[in-house]
């Protein structure tokens, strides 16, 4: 038995070393070893080459020594006396050798390489002596060194091994090193598949990994969440909608819609590549955000208003809650340049960024026969948004196709209330042959008045975990709140005092999908909205005269709710699937 094993044995049985002070690799595994084939060993990089000497002083390429085998490569120096250092690596490799002497088929596919990082002392002859007692016919185990520190240095560098000589105070080398123990598992393709340090180095887990490579050849199979599905084809769903308004200057084409969709999901359209259009208008959340009342832009900047749904936005005659735009082609530049949304410093910045991408160059050329410009970028995004038409709902089939069973009797009662006692249709209009559910006008419901003019209660109830509520002082909340921005609605555009706190009437199509509601997302459910209107909104001098207490019964409210839930288009799933098939630009 070699000197190494005397050292090992003496260390292992020394009264100064307790079991707790020995590395786990010396003791039986305290957990069940993983079963080969049930887990992945992802590639950690390529094995690196270098010039090495075997114990007969023959020079080899390190990679050549790995050829055709699964390899365990350990770095040691022969005079290392730290029981949890180099001796541990050799001990573990020896245990593997012992085990595989009974599993020759596996043993024949494995090679052990032990390479010294102390070439001055560890000559080929020294390494030969070091390894002599470990070499047998069952397993190929080679003990290597290098010709010099100069030849060693790139190997250590490439395997990212930090090794430092320990010197005496007067600068003389003590013959000892500080180093982190590392053993590398390398597959037949010379890819590193695992790296073990002392805490992780155990013969049983190494054998599992070896068997995984020898028998199962596992590969990195990490799940990807956004695997691109086959893009479905979508039919227009226009029953119940008027003729699609399309500007003569921007006729819809497949190329423009597809380009617009690509832009819509590209986070690079924001200044710091974090926010795309789709981050606030989420396809799976009704092309709004169900998870927050008001939107959040670049660097988390607060946006005052709820992100409006984009379903059927083609029919809106004005855009934004305050109606400050009237063309989708122009509107897209608003969020792109707003400091609290996508925060781009200029149009040129956006266009330069897009035009520098090869894929966009081709797509714009295909759609417009010219690169991205202020005009073509707007036209592409507008085309995609214009394609998000959704109707042919149960309501549409009942009213416009006369399918008497399409709408439940409760929803039919809701419809009667909607156009009658409840007065909803005065703003959310329904016409003879179609319904956009918006009068395209501006109204004051009192929501903004309340938010801007009414003093809050001294405390607020917060849900800090599911069904765990606490009442918190507003002073505490205010200490971490940025100054709240005022919101005067349509007045901000018109400067007409009569327009204070007025907002555009939104369409109600797909309304069940687009919570939370109102311009500031302050009402979380449709029931909350119905209760709000049933109570007559927020009473104040400028409240829209159309809004007044409705005295609707719970049954009436339930009927209205059923009616609103019947306004969901039949192509939502298709639209969402199509949207999700678009790779996200990062």
């Amino acid at each position: 038995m070699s000197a190494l094993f005397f050292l090992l044995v003496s260390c292992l049985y020394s009264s100064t070393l307790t079991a707790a002070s020995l590395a786990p690799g010396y003791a039986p595994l305290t957990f069940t070893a993983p079963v080969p084939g049930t887990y992945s060993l992802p590639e950690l990089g390529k094995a690196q080459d270098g010039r090495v000497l075997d114990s007969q002083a023959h020079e080899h390429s390190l990679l050549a020594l790995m050829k055709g085998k699964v390899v365990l490569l350990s770095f040691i120096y022969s005079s290392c006396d730290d029981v949890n250092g180099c001796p541990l690596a050799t001990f573990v490799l020896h245990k593997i050798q012992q085990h595989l002497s009974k599993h020759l088929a596996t043993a024949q596919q494995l090679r052990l390489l032990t390479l010294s990082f102390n070439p001055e002392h560890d000559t080929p002859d020294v390494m030969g002596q070091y390894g002599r007692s470990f070499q047998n016919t069952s397993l190929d185990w080679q003990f290597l060194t290098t010709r010099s520190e100069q030849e060693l240095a790139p190997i250590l560098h490439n395997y990212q091994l930090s090794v430092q000589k320990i010197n005496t105070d007067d600068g003389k080398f003590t013959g000892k090193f500080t180093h982190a123990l590392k053993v590398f598992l390398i597959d037949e393709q010379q890819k590193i598949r695992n790296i073990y340090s002392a805490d992780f180095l155990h013969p049983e887990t190494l054998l599992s990994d070896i068997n995984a490579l020898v028998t199962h050849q596992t590969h990195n199979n990490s799940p990807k969440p956004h695997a691109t599905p086959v893009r479905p084809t979508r039919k227009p769903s226009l029953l119940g909608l008027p003729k699609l308004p399309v500007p003569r200057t921007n006729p819809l084409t497949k190329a423009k819609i597809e380009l617009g969709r690509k832009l819509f999901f590209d986070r690079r359209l924001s200044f710091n590549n974090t926010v795309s259009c789709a981050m606030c208008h989420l396809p799976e959340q009704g092309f709004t955000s169900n998870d927050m009342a008001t939107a959040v832009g670049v660097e988390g900047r607060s946006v005052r208003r709820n992100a409006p749904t984009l379903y059927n936005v083609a029919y809106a005659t004005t855009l934004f809650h305050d109606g400050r735009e009237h063309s989708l082609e122009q509107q897209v530049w608003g969020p792109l340049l707003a400091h609290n949304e996508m925060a781009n410093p200029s149009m040129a910045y956006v266009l330069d960024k897009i035009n520098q991408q090869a894929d966009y160059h081709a797509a714009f050329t295909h759609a417009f026969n010219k690169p991205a410009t202020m005009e073509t970028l707007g036209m592409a995004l507008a085309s995609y948004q214009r394609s998000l038409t959704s109707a042919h709902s149960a309501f549409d089939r009942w009213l416009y196709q006369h399918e008497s069973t399409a709408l439940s009797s409760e929803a039919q009662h809701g419809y009667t209330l909607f156009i009658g006692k409840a007065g909803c249709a005065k703003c959310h209009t329904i016409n003879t042959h179609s319904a956009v559910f918006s009068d395209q006008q501006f109204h004051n419901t009192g929501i903004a008045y309340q938010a801007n003019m009414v003093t809050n209660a001294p405390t607020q109830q917060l849900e800090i975990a599911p069904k765990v509520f606490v009442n918190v002082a507003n002073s505490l909340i205010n200490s971490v709140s940025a100054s709240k921005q005022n919101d005067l609605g349509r007045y901000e555009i018109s400067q007409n005092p009569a327009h204070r706190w007025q907002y555009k009437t939104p369409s109600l199509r797909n309304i069940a999908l687009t919570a939370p509601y109102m311009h500031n997302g302050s009402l979380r459910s449709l029931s909350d909205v119905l209760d709000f209107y049933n109570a007559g909104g927020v009473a104040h001098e400028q409240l829209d005269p159309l809004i007044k207490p409705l005295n609707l019964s719970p049954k009436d409210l339930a009927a209205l709710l059923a009616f609103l839930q019947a306004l969901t288009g039949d192509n939502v799933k298709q639209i969402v699937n199509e949207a999700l098939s678009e790779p996200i630009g990062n």
Partner: protein
Amino acid sequence: MNTTQNSLRPLTRLLNTSLLLATLPFAFNATADETCQSPYMAKITGQEDVVYVWTLGMEGLGDEQDKMVTVDVNPVSKTYGKVIDSVSVGGRNEAHHADFTDDRQFLWAGGLDTNKIFVFDVHTDPLHPKLVKTITDFVAKSGGVVGPHSTYALPGRMMITGLSNNKDHGGKTALVEYNNAGDYVSTYWMPTDKALQADPSSVYADGYGYDVRALPRKNLLLTSSFTGWSNYMMDFGKMLTDAEAMKHFGNTVVQWDLHTRQAKKIFSVPGAPLELRCAWKTEHNYCFTTTALTSKIWLIYEDKDAVWQAKAVADIGEPANIPLPVDISISSDDTKLWVNTFMDGKTRLFDISDAFHPKQVYEQKIGAQVNMVSSSWDGTRLYFTSSLLANWDKKGLDNEQFFKAYRWDGQHLQQQFTIDFIKEKLGRAHQMKFGARSLYSTPNTATPR
């Protein structure tokens, strides 16, 4: 920024700083700031020379960029208590956590917003870290993971926890593995399989992420859970009053098989469990976490049947007032746990000698707000910084931004010095990591990298 050469004599440094090699027996366990490191990382058990402070840029202040700030904390240095270096990285990235590779040669610092990871060489000149690489492919390579948070060293690689995703900026996220060279390795999505729930009646299998810690001898990897980009980037007050947003916090700790990276069990830990800290002693098979919103200390422990369990073991302050526990630091002897509470700006010391019954034994107000705490290995020096998240920090005069050094005498914290990060035009001070020249000072180092 002026930089000044530290004046320590080499011999003094060598005596004051000892390096716990990875191969020493008591380095087998994970985890405080010197007591919070990854398993098997070289540790500073004596006097640290510097503290690296990963700092968020502030609009309107200085150069407005995120930066790695180096503070001289060695009392015998002429520049003790001063900023001796600052490396701006470009942009505001929501600088948050940072940690070393297993060889402690490089410091990886993540940006929760832009998803960049900045890699600093800290071994060539530990007093002057150098930005040597910026990883920009984190989202694309990982398959859509957003918000690189903990950068936790495993042998030859870094395990990085995400907080969000690029699909909806919600809380569903993953663990992402890179090798030490900065190349992507693999992605492991947080489990949402209800069959893994420790309590079958629980409603939680949220798939959220935050921190990660390992106990190799138990083949244990634990992850905690916070919230997605939409919330952690949102103005804190706006979020607190948004009932829907408040529903999107993590309520889970996940037990993983460390070797196979497979999720084994999901514990219900309601109220956003954040930092994970595992005990050091080999007979202490447990880790602590604290819940930010519900203000509790939770113990994740192995029971007598070798089954891992989770239990709430103490309240922190008055939970109804939302003190908001943030960073924690466990002592190297497993007897003390420092817990910072952001909203009241206090640090609290818990006696955890009985891990199942922590008792608060001390508290002190550090500032109007406080977030991170880092302890020296011997527990006599503690450092505090102020920033939680750019948009969660307090507003107005309470937005104090500082690095504060204290000495703990076993009874009281005694303040040694303060650096005002606003007065110095630096930004919001967040994560702290220790550096020491003696870690790298041995002549004839064999591996220039």
